[in-house]
């Protein structure tokens, strides 16, 4: 059971100090997770800390490759509503 950081990571360092297992480390071209140390924060926090602060949708995935922050989840705009919200904002 371990999370993974994929190439949409922007190297912002936000996750690194939060990891209760020190499983996250700086690497090129982006941060990585030591799968041997990652517990997905089970027993420490209700939410995986890296995924709870990561600012990029899709950058943190579980073992199946599913994004913990899927498209639309951080902007608050589900993809299906994008066009309608865009029209509303553009009218300001």
């Amino acid at each position: 059971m371990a999370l993974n950081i994929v190439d949409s990571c922007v190297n912002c360092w936000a996750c690194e100090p939060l990891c209760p297992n020190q499983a996250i480390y700086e690497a090129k071209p982006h941060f990585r997770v030591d799968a041997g140390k990652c517990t997905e924060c089970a027993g420490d926090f209700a939410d995986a800390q890296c995924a709870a602060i990561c600012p990029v949708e899709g950058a943190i995935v579980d073992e199946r490759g599913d994004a913990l922050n899927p498209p639309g989840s951080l902007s608050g705009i589900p993809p299906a509503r994008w066009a309608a919200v865009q029209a509303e904002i553009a009218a300001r």
Partner: protein
Amino acid sequence: MSGLSDEVRRKVQNHPCYSEEAHHHFARMHAAVAPACNIQCNYCNRKYNCSNESRPGVVSELLTPEQAINKTLAVAAAIPQLSVLGIAGPGDPLANPARTFATFRGLAEKAPDLKLCLSTNGLALPEQIDELAKYNIEHVTITINCVDPEVGARIYPWIFWNNRRIRGRAAAKILIAQQQQGLEMLVARGILVKVNSVLIPGVNDQHLKEVSRIVKAKGAFLHNVTPLIAEAEHGTFFGLMGQRSPSAAELKALQDDCAGDMKMMRHCRQCRADAVGLLGEDRGAEFTLDKVAVMKIDHQAALERRLALRAKVAAELENKRARAATPSEPARQVIGWHRQPRAVLGRAVLMAVASRGGGLINEHFGHAREFIIYEASEAGARLVGHRKTDLYCSGGEACGDGETVLDRTIGALEGCERVLCSKIGIEPWGRLEAAGIKPDGEHGMESIEDAVMAVWREMLAAGQLATPAAGRRCA
């Protein structure tokens, strides 16, 4: 600077971001040591590395505290005007407390003459304030865009708080409470607080008047309303969604509305989180890590140069204040003749000025990357803003849209009737005149305020100020 206590004047007199007067003479730099952020703003894109963009949140090289200390010392040796080291990102300084405070600790020891300051979203301010107060920090900027969670929910999609991601109105409510508490705690400790607000049309434009009233009541020193930057190519939520930026006229109108309540900052340049130099210039490219690594620096001599320059500027400004305090004979006559109430002599005029610093008209029109905008009236010359001529991007062909640089410059000077510069070529002279903006190269190397007022008096004497500007909107 009038109306300030001696204590406050001492704190702001060398700080370009807190004193309009100081910004002509002193330089600042931002050390990009703080990458992480604990909130998301809809005007920010966390993919911050672009060397062609100039806007908050963008940096080219992320620094460790040690690298930042070395870079700051190198800049302080090469640019004696340097008086301030700020940490402003590219994330939030207080979301990176170890890196931020290690940088401050090192500089407090190695360059004790530099003022240290930081700019924060305020979320972590109450919990970090004791640590912050240890480094003799006299200036903190908090970005406060709202005091109403309903407004905040349209600006901040989420915050990271107590190990959870909180969204929407609940997130904005926590952030607002932390910002206001942080503001009160800073004021209670005698730390000067500047409040930055991003003007977002249709979201917080009218609301910012209430923000201004509240932060003033709580003791903020200065309110800086800056225009939203929302270009689609920056990839921010607002940029991608077509949220528009305010016009220069909308920005000035709101600043004027807020000015009744408190001192407004008009000279902000919305600089990058790794900017170096006088406001409006960025010499960061001269101080990349590889260049700093091979510089040979005599730190003691550099410190002496900085102190000597500050003493010289302080003496010049003191002289200027002394001159201003004793009105010239004609001015005394004007005061004597015109007892209130009376009609004004002439209308206010906007003028654009090309300056490389020092408070002088000392830049060639064609070399100016920005113009400082002054409003001249009977009351004197007042700085009301600035206009960039290379808006946010100077990336050459990739940024070209067929419009010439000169066309863009003329567009950026909308509302101005004069442009004062040290020199100007024949082609731009003709094009500016055709656009109703008269160039003036007669006042090179003169003090900006004196020159602006001299031109205003010429216009007055020529009878040009009795009626509204012909066909021109006053921005």
